[in-house]
């Protein structure tokens, strides 16, 4: 009896221990490789979009970074079915609600990853390439993917390495010359003031200040501010603010390609003093460096902020797009408009940095059984028509924003008018799968008609009153920053230095901006500059300068 009890106990303990060692359920990540990228043997027919439909379904699983898996699944449905029905291509987008960098490292360490990965930055792509996990693609370009080369044009060579090998393709590449960042001002209240003109950041601020005096509290009695922001301020506000002083994405770039970080420039001190003045006047939301985007949006949509400095869309998203749903009496002029401000000392304001190479990369991994078939899909989807399908969503159905019949492309007028009038419901874009399967598509102006673009709502800028106003206000603030988008590879010791500097910068700039006197702000700025330089900022500048000069020589 006693022995039996002991034996039972031991068995139970062993079983519970071993059950913990069982293979975990990784069905979400695991991909049945036998079903992926199958060979397209047999008869192929050309469909109405010009795609040679494979006799066997071409299935491509791709990891696309951090997102809500349920939302992505829902938004993929219609587009996935459309591609399957018309193209016999099944795209499976894999996302996790986990930091992309962490997930990528885990994938590398575990060897468990799909055949395509997209949404990588240069640094992440470099890591996969260095590990031998990315397939060399130039071998397929002439054979099955000539469109990739012709669509990318001069950019193509910038993706080749020293050995002329191609491992990563861009997504969201190309130049769309429309503004992306600016100063913002509450339009109806500005008109109430007689729409006073302004040119410099100081004049812009004085108007915001007067506007705040006229609206010191919102309808709930909560205090209002001239400006606010959300964390990290050095990424969300500073580049646009520095652009008002003529700096390019936070750097002063000389004609010879020398890069100088804004903290090492006199402009940096000026813009810090400007923000400090706003703070000392009690006009800067004291939570600016703490707010998350949602915190900021809550304050903004509660009409507590008079202006903003940063991306154009945020004041639409947190402003009239909220008010028009919540307020029956909302009028069209209750909105923020995008305006420019330029320091008197700057030659021009540089608010929108364009990057023709795009910031995201797509690789085919060594898990792909037939990379050639995947390249065939890239070859189609990178064309203007392929880009339209991926960018604008499923055509010819009830929710479609466009139709494609007999080779003719037309907008659905009701949807178009919605965009023009500002009443378009963007959840419809999600439903028809706009952008959900982006892998190598560009966002620049399309070659075939010279005007269409991947972003559906940006196709009617000349007809949409407020977009047109924005474009006119900001047309000379856009600049090409393709050479200046430089990332330090993760295995370079400078990557750690760079992160340390970013963190120090946010902390020390917050300290300087929130100083109690101008002298303290200046002292704080000097302390920040010295600390950052001591931490290796000059090394970062030297790295950027070297890379920038190399690009000047080789890419032009």
């Amino acid at each position, binding site marked *: 009896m*006693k*022995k039996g009890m*002991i034996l039972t*106990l*031991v068995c139970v*303990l*062993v079983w519970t*221990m071993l059950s913990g060692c069982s293979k975990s359920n990784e069905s979400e990540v695991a991909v049945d490789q036998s079903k992926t990228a199958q060979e397209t043997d047999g008869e192929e027919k050309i469909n109405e979009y010009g795609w040679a439909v494979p006799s066997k379904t071409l299935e491509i699983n791709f990891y696309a970074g951090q997102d809500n898996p349920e939302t992505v699944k829902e938004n993929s449905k219609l587009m996935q079915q459309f591609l399957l029905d018309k193209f016999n291509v099944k795209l499976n987008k894999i996302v996790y609600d986990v*930091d992309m*960098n*962490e997930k*990528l*490292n*885990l994938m*590398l*360490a575990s*060897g468990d990853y799909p055949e395509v990965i997209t949404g990588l930055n240069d640094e992440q792509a470099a*890591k996969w390439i*260095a*590990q031998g*996990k990315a397939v060399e693609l130039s071998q397929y370009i002439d054979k099955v993917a000539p469109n990739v080369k012709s669509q990318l044009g001069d950019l193509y060579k910038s993706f080749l390495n020293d050995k002329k090998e191609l491992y990563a393709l861009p997504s969201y590449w190309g130049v769309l010359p429309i503004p992306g960042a600016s100063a913002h001002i509450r339009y109806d209240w500005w008109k109430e003031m007689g729409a006073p003109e302004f040119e410099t950041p100081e004049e812009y601020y004085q108007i915001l200040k007067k506007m705040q005096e006229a609206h010191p509290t919102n309808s709930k009695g*909560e*205090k209002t501010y001239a400006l606010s922001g959300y*964390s*990290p*301020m050095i990424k969300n506000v500073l580049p646009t603010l520095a652009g008002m002083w003529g700096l390019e994405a936070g750097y002063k770039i000389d004609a010879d390609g020398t890069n100088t970080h804004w903290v090492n420039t006199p402009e940096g001190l000026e813009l810090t003093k400007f923000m400090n003045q706003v703070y000392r006047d*009690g006009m800067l939301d*004291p*939570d600016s*460096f*703490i707010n998350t985007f949602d915190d900021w949006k809550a304050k903004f949509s509660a009409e507590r902020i008079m202006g903003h400095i940063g991306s154009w869309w945020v004041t639409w998203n947190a402003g009239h797009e909220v008010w028009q749903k919540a307020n029956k009496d909302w009028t069209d002029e209750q909105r923020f408009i995008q305006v420019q401000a330029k320091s008197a000392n700057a030659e021009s304001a540089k608010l929108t940095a364009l990057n023709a190479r795009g910031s995201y990369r797509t690789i085919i991994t060594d898990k792909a059984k037939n990379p050639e078939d995947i390249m065939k899909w890239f070859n189609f989807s990178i064309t203007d028509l392929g880009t339209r399908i991926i960018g604008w969503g499923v055509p010819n159905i009830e929710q479609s924003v466009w139709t494609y019949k007999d080779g003719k492309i037309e907008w659905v007028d009701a949807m178009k008018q919605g965009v023009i009038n500002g009443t378009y419901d963007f959840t419809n874009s999600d439903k028809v799968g706009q952008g959900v399967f982006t892998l190598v598509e560009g966002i620049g102006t399309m070659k075939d008609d010279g005007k269409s673009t991947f972003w559906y709502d940006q196709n009617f800028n000349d007809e949409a009153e407020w977009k047109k106003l924005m474009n006119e206000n900001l047309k000379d603030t856009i600049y090409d920053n393709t050479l200046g988008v430089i990332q330090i590879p*993760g*295995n370079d*010791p400078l*990557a*750690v230095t760079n*992160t*340390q500097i970013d*963190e*120090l910068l*946010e*902390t020390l700039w*917050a*300290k300087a901006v*929130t100083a109690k006197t101008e002298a303290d702000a200046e002292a704080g700025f000097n302390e920040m500059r010295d*600390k950052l330089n*001591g*931490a290796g900022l000059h090394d970062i500048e030297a790295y950027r300068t070297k890379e920038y000069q190399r690009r000047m020589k080789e890419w032009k």
Partner: protein
Amino acid sequence: MKKTMHGNIPSAPVRSAKPATWKRTLYRERNLWLICLPLIAWVILFNYVPMYGILMAFVDYIPGKSIFTSDWVGLKHFKDFIHSPDFGHVLRNTLAISGLNILFGFPAPIVLALLLNELRKKKFKQIVQTISYLPHFISWVVVASILFTLLGNEGILNDILLRLGWIGKPISFLGEGKYFWGIITAANIWKDIGWSTIIYLSAMAGVDSEVYEAGRVDGLGRLGAMWHITLPGIRTTIVLLWILGIGGILNAGFEQQLLIGNAQTREYYEVVDTYAYKYGIQLGNYSYGAAVGLMKAVIAVILVFSANRVSKKVLDTSIF
């Protein structure tokens, strides 16, 4: 006549006992060892085998490559950490936050347990105890949002102070580094004070009630009994937890720092664990993160041994 377990039965002449060898001991205790075997295997498998990963701190590990084929760099990552601009304030914050936790957080549950032990009404005592345990089950995410509601620029505390006219404009309690250590210590104590009383209350329950009666006869009041009977009665428990607490002095927290801290308070909230997470896991610099973590573990082991030695000498109580 020899007294045995079976009563007053005359015993047989006793044969001299065989010397206990480890084999005999093992055989005699075979049933116990059999039960322990899976657990020992578990500890070896999951606690000791993975420790080969410590090697990562001495190589330039790249995800996807084996640790054993990575380039050996010796103490490079340790040196990098020590020479990094963050080392000074990371170490300072870790020691300060942990020190404050030990200074205030260690005696707090003892005091609360002593007070709870004095409650005579059983029902009331149970209710108070249960309520005091509740904060332990509240996640740091919720605690952080409570703190923002209480201490934010537009929080309840600032509102009260403004209404009373004691301040002219809101104090940025969560945006100024000088308040951070106090806030995090108070939050830690609030969250765990009740839960930590459990072990002291159970130790107090083990103190012989006759000793209290004897004390009462000798004229001890309630405070006197606390000081002369209860506290000495739980001394071993206090020392044990103190030694373990010293070992965890570099465990200054993790979630609470990430949730309550922000860019403005970074110079005061960054501790070893958050630093290792940011520069190790998030940047994919696992070797660097492992080196920072290993350094912390080594210091913790040294501290445990030192505290144990001091305790042994001074209080004649130790854990090993």
